[in-house]
């Protein structure tokens, strides 16, 4: 988990409002929730004295910005994954949408599963169906709690 304070420490802390938000703290929150991008902080990009902070911020946020991070903030660490399918079978969205496949422990059959195992490693598709997605999101953690190797996290 990336904390707001960690991100804030790497911002200019001038509350210049050029990003459209009232404070750098608010901008830090927006960066983590991916409502803003680093590029929205123009001073950080343009002023040489922030060079180190910018590099640090890019490194810190790399997991969020990587292609692995789905829009729900789910990050899969393929190098840790066993491909066991515990998350696939425990996922409430899969259970509801794929009763003859993942719900009973098998591979997906309905075409509506959002977690599945491909080439021995779990992957997330149809991400807009995840319960953590959208305005009515819930903090479901079925895929994390069932993982034997901490291969999934939400950021």
């Amino acid at each position: 988990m990336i904390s707001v304070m960690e991100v804030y420490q790497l911002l200019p802390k001038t509350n210049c409002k050029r990003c459209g938000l009232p404070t750098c703290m608010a901008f830090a929150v927006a960066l983590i929730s991916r409502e803003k991008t680093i590029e929205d902080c123009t001073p950080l990009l343009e002023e040489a004295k922030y060079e180190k902070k910018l590099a640090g911020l890019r490194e810190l946020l790399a997991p969020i910005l990587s292609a692995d991070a789905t829009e729900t903030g789910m990050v899969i660490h393929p190098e840790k994954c066993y491909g066991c399918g515990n998350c696939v079978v425990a996922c409430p969205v899969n259970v509801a949408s794929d009763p003859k496949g993942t719900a009973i422990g098998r591979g997906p059959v309905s075409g509506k599963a959002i977690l599945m195992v491909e080439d021995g490693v779990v992957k997330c598709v149809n991400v807009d169906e995840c319960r953590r997605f959208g305005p009515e999101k819930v903090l479901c953690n079925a895929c994390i709690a069932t993982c034997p190797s901490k291969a999934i996290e939400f950021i």
Partner: protein
Amino acid sequence: MAFCTGCSLLCDDIVVDLDGGKIGKTMNLCRKGHAHYSSISSGRLTPSVDGSEVGVEDAMMAAAEVLAGADNPLLFGWGGSTLEAQRAGVDLAKKLGGAIDDPSSYSQGLITEKIIAGDLPTCTLDDVRNFADVSIYWGDDPSSSHPRHMSRFSYFPRGEKRQRGYEEDREAIVIDVRKSPTAQIAADGFFKITPGGDGAFIEALVASLAGKIPKVEDKKRMLNLGTKLRKAKFGAIFTGQGLAHSLRGDLSGFVSLVGKLSEITRFSVIPTLGDYNTRGFNQTLFDETGHVNSVTFKDGVRHGQEFSIARLLDSCDAVMVVGSDPAAALPAAIAKKLAKAVTVAIGSHRNMTTDFAKVSVPMAVAGIEAGGSCLRTDGVRVEFDGLVGSDHLSDVDIIKRIMEAV
């Protein structure tokens, strides 16, 4: 749907894209299964005699010659063979008057024998999925060894009487000496024991079931476990190497515990076996002789530890190893005996045993390159076809060819 022989769960819902006869993208294979599938294109065994590459026919003839010339041959391995090859292997051992054994003689053979003989109650993994509300993993870490065990059968799936999901409907208990990946999932259901402490745990649990104060540090937790198991509607105990080795061949306490549980409610034992068809070999030999391993056909049928690989390497004069690598698994002192013995190795890949062998015969990978049948770790029979073409002979064809030539 394709089929996976990567472990003894024999997953049958595998989807494989065949890209011009080659394995492409796969769905539903676990990490271990995916590695198993990928392995067909690397590290394959080549036919050889005395270190020189030969044609496969010559290698089989050399193998037959070794066996025909032996007074006390040992045929070992078989967990990585189809039922058809195992059957042929037992016939070959009979024809030769030799001994036959498998790695169960130094792992879970005794537990499997009690299950096959009906001395321990059992059920299928499908029963577990449909009915089990308590799963006990004892000295067993299927998350690592049989990655889809918990998701396909024993903890996470919905089943006939288990419709509400694992949090409400199921309980996972792990008894182990370390916090294994399976123990990680069981969280509060993990009971950590000291190395070799399984016997003491059994005693404490038996006491707890009888309503007596168990002689353990955390008495309350043990009593709670007893209550939990008493209340179970359908319990399953999955045994692993850890339990088998800790009990050192004396299963009396374990059998009595399962007996006590069975008086109270329904409890079944299913071993978590390593190779894809260990259960098949144990059953095949049991059907023939009444024993699951360590049998000789010299002067009638005899069984005993003296006919296990660990003991027999002192006296046998030829060894045929099929689909196994005892040289890597057994203690160095025993591996040394194997390296000195005249050995025929039949296998799909190069390993330490094939490195030491006089004769090597390559075989197809069953389930990917050849069809056949086998028994899942719970004894359910499964039949499968090959998926891709291969230049390699199947295991049963090799054994039969050798038998003809002996």
